[in-house]
C-alpha cells in the first residue's frame, strides 16, 4: 500500500462532508477530504436547522414525505450526531445552544423570525416574539444591516450607531478580536444608557472569539446580548465551518484544497481513485471508499442542463423531477419548486440507487427529495446524514 493511500476520501468540505470525515477519523481510519473551494456553509447563518415543519423537530421529520432521505437515519443516530456536533463546537470555543426537544426562533436582519433547532451561543438570547424590548446596535457605513427593518416590526426597539472606523462585516469582526477595540466599544455602549432588556448586534462580534466577546459585553452591560445573522460574508457561517474543519484536522484528517475532482479510476464494481485538475500532471488519490458530499446546485454538486440534471463528480444517476416545466413553480417565492427534489436517490446504506460501484456513499444536500427550503432541514440534515453515511461506509468498507 502506498503512503498516500487513504481508507476513505470525502468529496466536499461542507457540513455533511466534514461531519462524515471527522467521525471516520475518530474510528481510526485514514481519511482525506478533497474540495474545489470553500462550502456554502460559510454563507449560512450558522444555525442548525433540523426540521422546521413542527415545533418538535423529530415529529416534523416523522411527517416528511415517504421518500425523504431523513427517514433513512434512525432517531438514535440523529440524536447522537447532534450531540456530537454540540460537543465538537463547544470544544472549539463556539458552543451551540438548544436541543432536539423543540425548535426555537432566531431574529433575522429583516425583523422576521427564522425557525431553527440549534443556534450559536451568540444567538441564544434572540427574542422569541415582537414584543420584547431590544436595543439594536449598528455600525456606521455597514451596508449589510439596517435596523429600520427590525424597528418597523418591533414596537419596543430603538437603535444607536457605532463608528468602528471600518465599514465591512469582515473588517469590524477582525477589529473585535483586538481587546482595546472591544474595550472602547463597551465603554461607548455603557454611555448609551440602554433602557431595553436586550442588546442586538449584527453578527460581527469577532472571528473566532465570538462566544467570549459576547460574554464580556453581557457582563459589563448586565443584560443579554445577541447577534443577528447577516447576509454574506456571514461570520457565524464561517465560525461553523472553521470549527468543523479544525476538528476534522485534529482527528487526523487531511484536507486537499483547490481539488475539483475531474476524473475517476475504477475497476469492476470499485472506484479506485479520484483525479484532480492540475497545471502539470493530473493528481490522483487512492482510497477504499468514497463519500460524496458536494452539495446541491449552489454547492456545486449538481448542475442543471437544459433538459437534464447531472451529478458532476461520478456522473451518478440523478433523480430529476419530471420535464423542465415541472422544475419551477409559477410563484418565484414558492416553497414548492420541483427542482428542490432533484438529487441522488440512495438505498438504506446511503449508496446511490442504480450505481455501478459499491464503494460510494452519499450524504448531505445532494440527496434527492430533501427539499431543504420547504422542510427547513439544512445543516441538521447534513450532520445526521453525514454521520449515518459514515457509519454505513465503515460497515461496508471493502
Amino acid at each position, binding site marked *: 500500500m502506498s503512503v498516500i493511500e487513504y481508507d476513505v476520501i470525502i468529496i466536499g468540505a461542507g457540513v455533511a462532508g466534514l461531519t462524515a470525515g471527522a467521525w471516520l477519523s475518530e474510528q481510526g481510519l485514514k481519511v482525506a477530504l478533497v474540495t474545489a473551494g470553500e462550502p456554502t456553509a460559510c454563507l449560512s447563518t450558522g444555525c442548525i436547522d433540523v426540521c422546521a415543519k413542527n415545533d418538535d423537530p423529530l415529529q416534523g421529520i416523522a411527517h416528511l414525505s415517504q421518500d425523504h432521505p431523513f427517514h433513512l437515519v434512525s432517531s438514535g443516530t440523529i440524536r447522537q450526531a447532534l450531540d456530537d456536533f454540540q460537543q465538537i463546537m463547544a470544544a472549539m470555543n463556539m458552543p451551540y445552544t438548544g436541543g432536539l426537544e423543540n425548535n426555537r426562533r432566531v431574529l433575522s436582519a429583516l425583523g422576521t423570525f427564522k425557525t431553527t433547532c440549534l443556534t450559536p451561543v451568540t444567538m441564544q438570547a434572540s427574542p422569541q416574539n415582537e414584543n420584547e424590548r431590544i436595543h439594536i446596535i449598528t455600525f456606521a457605513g455597514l451596508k449589510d444591516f439596517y435596523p429600520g427593518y427590525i424597528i418597523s416590526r418591533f414596537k419596543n426597539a430603538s437603535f444607536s450607531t457605532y463608528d468602528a472606523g471600518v465599514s465591512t462585516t469582515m473588517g469590524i469582526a477582525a477589529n473585535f478580536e483586538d481587546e482595546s477595540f472591544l474595550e472602547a466599544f463597551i465603554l461607548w455602549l455603557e454611555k448609551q444608557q440602554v433602557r431595553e432588556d436586550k442588546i442586538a448586534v449584527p453578527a460581527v462580534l469577532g472571528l473566532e472569539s465570538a462566544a467570549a466577546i459576547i460574554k464580556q459585553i453581557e457582563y459589563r452591560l448586565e443584560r443579554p446580548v445577541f447577534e443577528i445573522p447577516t447576509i454574506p460574508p456571514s461570520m457565524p457561517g464561517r465560525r461553523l465551518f472553521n470549527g468543523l474543519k479544525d476538528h476534522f*484536522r485534529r482527528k487526523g484528517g487531511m484536507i486537499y484544497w483547490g481539488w475539483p475532482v475531474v476524473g475517476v479510476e475504477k475497476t469492476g464494481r470499485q472506484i479506485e481513485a479520484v483525479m484532480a485538475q492540475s497545471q502539470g500532471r493530473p493528481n490522483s488519490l487512492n482510497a477504499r471508499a468514497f463519500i460524496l458530499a458536494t452539495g446541491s446546485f449552489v454547492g456545486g454538486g449538481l448542475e442543471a442542463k437544459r433538459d437534464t440534471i447531472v451529478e458532476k463528480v461520478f456522473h451518478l444517476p440523478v433523480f430529476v423531477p419530471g420535464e423542465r416545466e415541472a422544475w419551477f413553480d409559477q410563484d418565484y417565492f414558492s416553497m414548492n419548486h420541483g427542482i428542490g427534489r432533484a438529487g441522488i436517490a440512495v438505498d438504506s446504506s446511503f449508496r446511490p440507487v442504480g450505481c455501478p460501484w459499491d464503494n460510494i456513499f452519499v450524504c448531505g444536500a445532494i440527496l434527492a427529495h430533501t427539499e431543504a427550503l420547504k422542510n427547513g432541514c439544512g445543516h441538521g440534515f447534513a450532520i445526521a446524514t453525514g454521520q449515518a453515511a459514515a457509519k454505513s461506509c465503515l460497515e461496508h468498507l471493502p
Partner: protein
Amino acid sequence: MKYEHCIRCTICVENCPVFRVNPAFPGPKQAGPDAQRFRSNREKSADEWVLSCSQCKRCEMACPCGVEPAQIILRAQQKYGLEHPHTAAHLLFANNYYLSTLGSLTAPLANRFAATKIGKKIFQRMGIATYIPFPKFSFKTLRGSMKSRSRETRKVAFFYGCFINFYRPDIGRKIIRMLQSFKIDVVLPPQWCCGLPALGNGNLALARSFAGKNIASLSNYVDAGYDVVYTCTSCGLCLLHDYQGIMEIPGAKKIAENSYDLHEYVLKLIAEREIKPQFKEVNRTLAYHIPCHLRALEIGYPAANLMQLIPGLTCQILDDNCCGLNGSYGFKKINEVTALQLGGRAVSLIKKTGAEAIVADCGSCRMQLAGLSGMDAFDPVEIICESLGIKDKK
C-alpha cells in the same frame, strides 16, 4: 479570465488576509471580478489599490466557482506597472536575482552593511521596511559549491531557487545529499530567478525574460530524461502556473508536467516502491505553517504526509493564516503595517499550539515567523534529513 462565473458570494473576501487588516484594499471580489468589468485596454489604470494585493492566492483556493481573483488582479497589477513609473523598492525587488548575485559576491560586506543603522536608514528612505532583519547572503552559493555526478538511472534537475542559492545553500546541500542517498543522480541545471519577484513588482517583461531562459535550460534536461524538482513553493507555483498562464512561455506545459515539489517527489518514489527510507525518531513538537503558495500548488501538503512517517514527531498543521511577508511584499514600507499585523496573528496562533519550533516550506515565511516570534523555523527537509541522519558536509 473567468470573471463572469463570480456569483458574488464573498467567500474570497472572507479568506483575504489583506482585506482583513487593510481597509484601503477593497478585497478580491471588488478588486478582481467586479472591477474587471470596468477595465479597458484603452484606458489608463487608476486603481492604485491593486498593488495592495499580496498575491497569496487564498481567494483562488477558496472560490467555489473556479474564479481566479488573484490572477485577475495580477494582470491589473502588470498593466498598472506598465503605465506608471516604478518606485525604487519595486525596481530593486524585481531585480532581486541580480541584486543577490552582487550581495553574495560581497557577502561579508553586504551583510554587515545591511545590519547597520545607516544601512537601515537608507533602506527606509528607499521605501523598504526593516522590521525584521534581512536574510544573510551566503558567500558560497549552492551553485558554486556542488559538482554533479551521473551514474544512477533516475535523474533529477534541481531547481533550487534564489533563496536557497544565495541565503541558505546548506539546505540545498542537504536536499542534494538526501536525493543522492536514494540513489538519484542530481544536477544543477543553468537557472535564473523564476521571475515571480519581477511579476510581483509589476515587471512582466523582466519576468518573461527570466522564464524564457529557465524554460530553455530545463527543457534540455527534461528531454534527456530528467525530472525537475523544486523546493521553493513560490518558484514551483511560477513554474507550474505562471509560465503557462500570464507569461505565456512556449514549452511551459512540458516543464509543468515534469516538475515536482521535493516532498511530492519523495512520496512518489516511496509509493512506487523505488525507495524505502528508514525514518528514525525525532522528538520534536512542531507547528507546520503552510505557505500560501504551497496551498495554491493544489498538491496537498506532501511534506506533512512525509513527516507523519517520522516516529516521535508531533506536527500540527496551520493553514488558515498568511505570514504577511509574501516575498518582497512585506519588505515594502507601504505594506509594513499589513505584514506586521498578519505576521503577529500567525505567530500568536503558532504559539497557542505549544510548539517548540516552526516548520515551513517557504524561506520568506520562515524569515517572517522566526523574526517576529523569536522561535526557530525549519524547512521540512531539515526535519526529514534529521530523521534520516543526513548532515550538511561542506
